[in-house]
């Protein structure tokens, strides 16, 4: 295999007269901990490694998407825009990337254009220089405003083409969608992504050249997940077949539910003949730091997955899998995971095989959990499922099973109209309500309500590149000593005496 890949890269070198440079894009601060740590990496964990990440040679560093907004605010009591700003103060060379999810914000429900515009504005104002747009139904209409805003503000625009193992999602489909994005938005770059790790080598060999043929010199990035054993090989094959960039993360926050390891990709890409600017050894140092955070907080590190063809039936995204496991555990029904996964596969087909990317994995998982818990399928219908069936999110990829559609419409909330309403602007009302508040806070209050945002805790800034805090540990240790002990510690610049 090594020789075959080398031969292909070398053939390109002979044909073009130049050795292609493959760029790596970092997902450690965004997708990787979303997939492996249920998005629980804190800003304090990120700041100490920020400058080192900046120096590794990544083309871009992903920082926040809406899942990071949710986790920061709802679970970590942290301000995601503060995170972005603090990172941008430390990462000065590598462009920071933020993601836009369709025309949605916190909920699955589409938001009016003025709020989408404000969201993109605040991302850029806080340091994002590369905005990636993800639209699971590939309805570019949903992205018109946010792309225009990003372009107006001078950010690089990257649009996602999301892989789907379903009829109709072939090389022709993705090529057509790429062409449409160029014609409508003059988009800067493309990211062909596989959230569920179900893309095969054969498909990448077919789809990547087809997209590349349409987009020409515009860069094509490929992202895959390693829920199956083939994720990393798929990424390498994508590079061989024309991809310019690969999304990855620092091992040990790679593999398993997450994407390929940056260190592995760098050394393998070089070995088959590509140019790669990446400091492998410095990445290993960050890897040690991440392993320390994992150990200190009881987080798992990425473990390579076993090849399992059953995975191609479920197609469940890495981050969604991690969150589902966590939620079932919290509900005390962790043992139901296999049954829920089977139900997910069945529901997906019944609902017309939507792309298993946000928000649909969570939507289908919610329906699956309800089907399993209630004992009767579609007896309880989440609001998002009814909205999806009614076309609130855009045109559906394939028709919904008629019987299922009947049950969803019958048992779903009657408050959800069969026809999606026209979305009225929200920002004017927000500005009246929050007069005097700066836009970051206004946006966050619009998304999460006053109580959560008032309760956010500012980040404690400490850039020490270590999970060990010797001074803290020393003081904590001394505090445990009996009171009558006399302790005197003296060292350069530090003296401590207790009586």
């Amino acid at each position, binding site marked *: *295999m090594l*020789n075959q890949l080398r031969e292909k890269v070398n053939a390109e070198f002979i044909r073009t007269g130049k050795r292609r440079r493959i760029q790596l894009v970092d997902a450690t601060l965004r997708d990787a901990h979303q997939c492996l740590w249920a998005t629980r990496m804190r800003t304090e964990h990120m700041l100490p490694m920020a400058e080192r990440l900046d120096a590794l040679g990544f083309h871009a560093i992903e920082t926040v998407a809406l899942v990071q907004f949710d986790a920061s605010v709802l679970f970590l009591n942290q301000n995601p825009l503060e995170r972005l700003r603090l990172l941008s103060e430390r990462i000065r060379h590598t462009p920071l990337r933020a993601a836009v999810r369709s025309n949605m914000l916190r909920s699955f429900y589409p938001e009016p254009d003025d709020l989408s515009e404000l969201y993109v504005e605040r991302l850029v104002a806080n340091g994002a220089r590369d905005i990636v747009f993800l639209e699971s139904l590939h309805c570019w209409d949903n992205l018109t405003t946010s792309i225009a805003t990003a372009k107006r503000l001078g950010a690089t625009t990257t649009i996602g083409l999301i892989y789907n193992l379903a009829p109709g999602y072939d090389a022709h489909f993705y090529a057509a969608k790429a062409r449409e994005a160029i014609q409508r938005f003059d988009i800067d770059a493309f990211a062909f992504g596989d959230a569920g790790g179900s893309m095969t080598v054969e498909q990448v060999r077919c789809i990547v050249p087809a997209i590349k043929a349409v987009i020409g010199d515009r860069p094509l990035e490929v992202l895959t997940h390693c829920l199956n054993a083939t994720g990393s090989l798929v990424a390498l094959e994508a590079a061989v077949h024309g991809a310019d960039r690969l999304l990855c993360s620092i091992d040990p926050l790679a593999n398993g539910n997450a994407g390929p390891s940056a260190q592995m990709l760098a050394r*393998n890409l070089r070995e088959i003949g590509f140019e790669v600017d990446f400091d492998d050894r410095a990445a*290993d140092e960050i890897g040690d730091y991440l392993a320390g955070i994992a150990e200190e907080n009881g987080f798992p590190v990425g*473990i*390579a997955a076993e090849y399992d063809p059953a995975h191609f039936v479920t197609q469940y995204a890495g981050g969604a899998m991690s969150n589902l496991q966590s939620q079932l555990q919290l509900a005390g029904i962790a043992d139901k995971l296999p049954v829920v996964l089977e139900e997910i596969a069945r529901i997906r087909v019944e609902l017309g095989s939507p792309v298993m990317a946000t928000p649909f994995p969570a939507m289908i998982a919610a329906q699956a959990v309800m089907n399993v818990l209630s004992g009767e399928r579609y007896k309880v219908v989440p609001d998002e499922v009814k909205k999806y069936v009614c076309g609130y999110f855009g045109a559906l990829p394939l028709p919904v099973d008629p019987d299922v559609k009947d049950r969803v419409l019958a048992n779903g909330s009657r408050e959800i109209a069969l026809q999606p309403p026209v979305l009225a602007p929200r920002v004017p009302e927000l500005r009246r309500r929050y007069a005097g508040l700066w836009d970051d806070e206004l946006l966050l209050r619009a998304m999460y309500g006053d109580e959560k945002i008032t309760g956010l805790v500012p980040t404690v800034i400490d850039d020490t590149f270590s999970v060990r805090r010797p001074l803290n540990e020393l003081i904590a240790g001394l505090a445990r000593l009996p009171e009558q002990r006399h302790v005197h510690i003296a060292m350069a610049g530090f003296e401590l005496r207790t009586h």
Partner: protein
Amino acid sequence: MSMTTLVDVSLSDGQTAVWGGAASTAMLLGTMNSLGHARLAAIEVLSPAVIAQCVSREENPLQRVAALRERANGTPLRATVNLLATHGYIDVLSGEALNTWLRLLARIGISEVVLIDPQLDFQRLDSAVQMALANGLSVIAALPYVDDHEHSDAHYSASAARLAQTGAQRIMLRDEAGLLHVDRLPGLLSALRDGLDGTPLDLHTRCHTGLGPQVALEAIRLGIDRLDAALPCVANGASTPALPLLARSAALLELSLQAPDPDRIKEAETQFAAVADQQGFPESQPWAFDLAPYEHQLPGEIAADAMQALRARGRLADLFGFARECTRIRQELGNPPMLPPFAQAIARQALEHLDAEPRYATLQPALRRWLQGCYGPIDTSLTRLQQRIGAVATPCRVINLSTDDALAALICGCPALPPFQKLEYEIRTPEQALTQGLLQRWPGYTVLSVTGPGLSIHLEHSKG
């Protein structure tokens, strides 16, 4: 097309690759009770690595075979025999020594042997196959898989044809470095079938790149006759694919596999995993994909040891540097096969070169014997090194056959085979383990008290 059957290698290659061969004979017995009733095509119980592990623990490897046979419920037991020994007491196992060893294996309960000649010396294999057949053994001739330009489909086809001519009843493609992939498999298996002319074809593959299960399933689809697999706790990584995964996936993909009894396999897994838990053996984990195995081509546990050595040195970033050094050493030596006894020596030599210059400041013993021509004439570029170490008077060591026992000891690489021991092993519940630990320690204490949810143990010496 006949159904593919499965052979379990948990007790040999599986525990060697994942646990470093740490399972004693007594630890295997409970698992064998279940495996023996699982309707497997065969169970592998002995290999050169297992023999070395037994000897290092002063266990008699033949006792292991006998004890496992008692619990095998008639399932055929398999042994692998490498015609090139790894321990250094002998170089090439042939002639009467090999005949005696095969006789001993048959007598103790082995019914199938996999004959491996890393150099694929067909004359040696002709003789070895005939001896094995004469001793009543079913014979599987191994065809080592190498991933390079020289080893084309035509080469494999011709080699398979020649191996079939030896009289072996089955041919086994052995991919001990886990290099096969689904692009390579269809053409290769077709070429092998052409050469074999009806002789059954088996596959032994590993999971160094994580692709082993995919390769195994593709092989089933293509009609491989037999496939090696292991229980999940000793599968993946440097080991073979996991047996339950193959059975489950074959059913899902509607592939033609004669699956073993799932309940018995589950029992065996539970038992073997409990041993690992009690003994603190490493957990089996799949390895992440990497192209480096295609460069170094190190087999099984030797690749695992090399990865561990690089990790311990903090030099995983030099993985390809190490792999290229393996290739360079191999080429300089005149291409010894990347199998025991040479593979481990090449890996160690490469690590030495990576650690410090000058290259070949020291030389691994197996490579020294190779350079001295003990395995036949070679074409090496290391002529100065060859001159430095000098030739040996008689390249093939003479084996004095006094008794079968003495010969068996020599073949196993020890002065004398250890006596048979009493085999006892008990899986304890956590409560039993706690109680036993406390009882062992409490003479040293006046009072020992343990309390926990639903648990209260109080030990106190009676006064007077």
